[in-house]
């Protein structure tokens, strides 16, 4: 009912304003969270090729702000103005799939010539499908590494990660020791990028080394008070408040501006490394090993077609074109691909001239192959906010870690039980 009224109103509006597009022209709009000029240039190049083979079709990219991206996107959907395609985080994808907001892609991928869906390792697809139907394309499978400012570490007289790796001693304990030595000189030690004591999910790249997870495997109960998580959080707490190896809450420090010795983040941030006067001797190394031994962590993003878009078939066709082997090879410089055939040091180093082959081998290829990633859970927005509020109690020097995590689970369990 509501939708009919809306459609009528829209129709009336378009007729009266003369904005009706000719029947043969089609517009596709993809919502993205990057406004990076280099990204957009490449996306537009791909769009141009598609437009050339599809007369009358125009493809545009709508750069929404990263902050509040999901809110904005959902508001557009609720407002009857959904984009045709949208980037989605692996955390938000389950709710979109469950709500029926996405268009199934299995057939399109199967029938597109040369697409070769078998090129994707099954593990890379499962996060983006539901009940055997593919709803999103695994757009970015981005391993986390540690960027290092060797100049700063050497000036502080500490061991660099490269030296620790060579000695087989690249563990979290030693990484924090190096960071603490640098921090004692007045700079910051290790920054977990984008964490800022708010986006706790970004601590996963650390606590995964302890084998810790926020919720149980069936996502029906809270695991913040598991032994692994308590140990991991105690380690992080100690690194922040006792060893001062990580900047405390409310302290702004940017590795890429030369404020800190190390930062854990996705390799795509290599583009933020300073050039010219501000440049320093940097390195990219894998995450240190934790109590579980060596491990890797991967951040994921997918692209889906909105079921309520004006022309989901055409949008799906564009997505298949966007993610063809040729285009994914080009996109690999920013967004590490899930395609097996492209996960070679040659392809990746051509796309990432900033990184050495060794760095690519150690961080990217091994990362994509062995990396764990976020546990998917329904109703993520609410769980995320609840956990954020609960974890705030942890970021005090005298925090009762077990108490805080138990209290957090008391709040999360009723929400999780409803899943």
């Amino acid at each position, binding site marked *: 009912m509501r939708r009919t009224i809306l459609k009528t109103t829209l129709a009336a509006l378009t007729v009266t304003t003369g904005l009706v597009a000719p029947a043969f022209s089609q517009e596709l709009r993809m919502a993205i969270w990057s406004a990076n000029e280099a990204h957009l240039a490449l996306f537009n190049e791909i769009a141009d090729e598609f437009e050339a083979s599809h007369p009358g079709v125009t493809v545009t990219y709508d750069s929404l702000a990263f902050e509040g991206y999901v*809110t904005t996107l*959902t*508001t557009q*959907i*609720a407002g009857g103005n959904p984009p045709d395609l949208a980037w989605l985080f692996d955390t938000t994808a389950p*709710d*979109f799939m*469950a*709500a*029926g*907001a996405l268009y199934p892609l299995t057939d399109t991928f199967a029938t597109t010539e040369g697409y070769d869906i078998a090129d994707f390792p099954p593990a890379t697809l499962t996060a983006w499908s539901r009940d055997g139907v593919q709803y999103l394309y695994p757009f970015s499978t981005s391993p986390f590494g540690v960027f290092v400012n060797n100049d700063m570490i050497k000036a502080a007289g500490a061991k660099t990660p490269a030296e620790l790796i060579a000695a087989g001693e690249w563990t979290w304990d030693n990484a924090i020791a190096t960071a603490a030595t640098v921090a004692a000189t007045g700079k910051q030690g290790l920054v977990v990028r984008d964490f800022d*004591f*708010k986006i706790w999910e970004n601590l996963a790249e650390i606590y995964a080394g302890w084998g810790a997870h926020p919720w149980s495997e069936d996502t029906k109960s809270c695991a913040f008070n598991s032994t692994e998580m308590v140990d991991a959080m105690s380690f992080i707490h100690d690194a922040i408040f006792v060893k001062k190896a990580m900047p*405390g*809450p*409310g*302290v*702004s420090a940017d590795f890429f501006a030369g404020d800190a010795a190390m930062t854990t983040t996705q390799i795509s941030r290599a583009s933020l490394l300073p050039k010219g006067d501000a440049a320093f001797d940097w390195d990219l190394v894998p995450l240190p090993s934790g109590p579980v031994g060596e491990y890797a962590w991967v951040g994921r993003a997918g692209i889906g077609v909105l079921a309520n878009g004006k022309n989901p078939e055409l949008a799906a066709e564009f997505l298949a074109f966007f993610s063809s082997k040729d285009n994914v090879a080009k996109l690999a410089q920013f967004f590490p691909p899930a395609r097996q055939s492209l996960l070679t040091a040659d392809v990746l180093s051509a796309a990432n001239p900033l990184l050495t082959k060794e760095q690519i081998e150690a961080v990217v290829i091994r990362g994509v192959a062995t990396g764990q990633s976020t546990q998917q859970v329904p*109703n993520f*927005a*609410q769980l995320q*906010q609840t956990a*954020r*509020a*609960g974890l*705030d*109690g942890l*970021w*005090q020097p005298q925090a009762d870690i077990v108490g805080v995590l138990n209290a957090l689970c008391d*709040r999360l369990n*009723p929400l999780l039980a409803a899943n």
Partner: protein
Amino acid sequence: MALALDTSQARRKRGFWTMARRDAATGYLFITPQLIGIIIFVLIPLGLVFWYSLHEWNVLAGSFRFTGAANYEKLLSDPALGEVMTVTAVFSAGLALLNMSLALGLALLLNQKLAFMTVFRTLFFSPVVVSLVAWTIVWSFLLQSNGGINGLLQMIGVEGPNWLRNPTTAMISVIVVQALKNVGLNMILFLAALQGVPRELFEAARVDGVPRFKQFYRITLPMISPTILLASIVTIVGALQVFAQIMILTQGGPGFSTTVLVYYLYQQAFQFYLFGYGSTLSIVLLVIVGALTFIQWQLRRKFVFYEN
């Protein structure tokens, strides 16, 4: 003149359209835009909010289901709500108290016949015209633990706290930042009210030997009490609507320590897409505002000295 009189007589003869009737018609015409606006943008939405509050409504899933009082029952069992209400009360009361007393203090100072008072008045008022979001973003920088405020404090040898990361100082921060932004408005209103107090009253009091602070309680306060009352209503209703500052400074944290009702409402409706429960929270906010206004209006009889 004669011509004008003629026409007015001619008009009077027009039968049904007497002066009073034409006047009434004009009156309705004049209020029509506002009245229609209030009906469409206030009264109907209010009715709808109540209607929505009886439903479970998830926009993403497209589900809209009548659930009766379920949302109100959820309200009672919502573990966060008690804290949210306490936070809202502390924030609103703290903000109103700080704003009103600071505004009155500044107005009393600026009411002295001294040089440069216009300059001071302008400067104290200036935050009012600075964009709210710009003002708050700047404060969010200044309140970082390695930010400008602690830098200033260090200059005088004080080690500042981690303002936005500690529940108590975070609450103080959001109150003070908001008070500084808007205190200029009340300051000007009080200043105007103070200047409206007849000087003869003070002169008479001085002749009678009434000390200064007694003059303040006996003359100044009663004379400007109507302004204080109206300003306090506007300030408290305003305090209950503070949203952007919370969003930018603390996002309701740490914990729930600065999650005021409006922010909680926004989270539920627009971040979790629970429009039904968000509507229930709207009704709660409405009841609180209505009750407070009613109480303040009643207090007027007791404390306000005169009214025109």
